[in-house]
């Protein structure tokens, strides 16, 4: 009987180890919340696609001898996974903020996008306190938009947090929410399939300072990878791939 337990123990350790990959310096694991079309989304084959995903692939081609793996996981699990060394890079509509910069190291800004409020055409809410008073606003848990709203409007509006922006948009379409606050490209993409909604961007320059551009992030102190990524991005910019992708998705 004891032998049986020993066998079970070794079998289970073996199973765990078989799902282990010992640190390979050649493989870089990129992770994102792939529910933010058109920036990052999961296509039907289960592959991560979208503007930033293609950008990552382009950058990887510029990095010699490296293999890039792109996977999907929930947004609020990205930073802990980074710290746990589960993943190497997090990307996909990640806004650079001061607080985050204390937790992780950001690459240079990849691109900038406006942030906006989407509400029904009847309500047509705007970014001022009177318009938003007592309304239900949906945001993604852990996003910079959530942090902004809590800082600015904490007691006057009802902030509802969702695992992903699309869940918030779902609740917008069935009137549980009055508005959703998220990255404008994502909202615009959704708007294409849904009629009767208005999009208002945040334009006040002093408020906009809260939102840096979008960048990728690595574990704090991982200078080598950071340098690699920045170098690859520069290469992608200089040879026009970046501009081509930008045109493809945003124009």
């Amino acid at each position: 009987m004891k032998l049986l337990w020993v066998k079970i123990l070794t079998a289970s350790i073996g199973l765990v180890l078989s799902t282990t990959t010992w640190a390979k310096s050649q493989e870089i694991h990129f992770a994102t919340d792939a529910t933010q079309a058109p920036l990052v989304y999961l296509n039907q084959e289960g592959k991560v696609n979208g503007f930033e995903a293609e950008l990552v692939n382009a950058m990887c081609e510029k990095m010699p001898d490296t293999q890039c793996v792109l996977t999907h996981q929930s947004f609020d699990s990205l930073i802990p996974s980074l710290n746990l060394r589960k993943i190497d890079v997090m990307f996909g509509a990640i806004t650079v903020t001061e607080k985050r910069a204390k937790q992780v190291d950001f690459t240079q800004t990849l691109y900038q996008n406006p942030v906006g409020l989407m509400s029904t055409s009847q309500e047509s809410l705007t970014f001022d306190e009177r318009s938003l008073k007592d309304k239900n606003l949906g945001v993604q848990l852990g996003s910079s938009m959530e942090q902004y709203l809590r800082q600015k409007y904490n007691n006057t509006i009802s902030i509802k947090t969702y695992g992903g922006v699309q869940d918030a948009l779902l609740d917008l379409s069935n009137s549980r929410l009055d508005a959703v606050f998220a990255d404008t490209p994502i909202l615009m993409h959704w708007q294409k399939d849904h009629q009767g909604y208005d999009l208002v961007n945040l334009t006040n320059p002093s408020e906009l300072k809260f939102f840096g551009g979008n960048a990728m992030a690595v574990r704090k102190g991982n200078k080598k990878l950071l340098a690699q990524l920045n170098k690859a991005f520069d290469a992608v910019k200089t040879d026009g791939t970046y501009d081509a992708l930008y045109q493809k998705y945003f124009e």
Partner: protein
Amino acid sequence: MSYLEGYAPQLLEGALLTLQLGIVSLLLGLVLGTLGALGELSRSTVVRYFTLSWHTLIRGLPEILILFAVFYGSDLLFNRWLPTPIDISPYWAGIVGLGILFGAYASQVLRGALLAIPTGQREAALALGFSHRQIYQHILLPQLWRYALPGLGNLWLVLLKDTALVSLIGLTDLMSRAQAAVSITQKPFTFYLTVACIYLIMTSISQWLLQRYYQKTTRYLGAKQ
């Protein structure tokens, strides 16, 4: 099936992963559970006290909290205390969390099973000069299975359903893939109902297998006792 808008193969992949996750967690949980049961029955008061406290703690906290604790807590372990980085399987956080949970509950079942074995056997063994360790090894543990199976079977079903929680710590199991599909297709009912049915199939098959195995192992139970 076109009504799943082509996401069916992904869901099946997720289901496979859920099963794998469940099985590995089960194995870890059985090992922890056995150690736990032995610990609670130990003659050392210290060991008894610690194992009992551990089990009470784990059983008293929400499952999601345990998973978060393993997920976030190991951040401390790996980054602030251990010097070298190692890439362990991305699913180990789920496996360890679910295994700890299963182990805590299983220890109660196994302890009950150990106590249910007729004491006459133990007494006879002692009279024959067996040491305590030999009694466990040759008499008690081999019979454990028969008494513990119904309880462990129920815990397996609970484990299978609890695997859905790993989607909340970023693992791409069946639940997480359904969520991704919902976010693109905006058809929550379709996908969540499908996922529910997949879980239903998995639990039903498990129950059927457990029933059959239980009948097989208890064939001689109660005979000549």
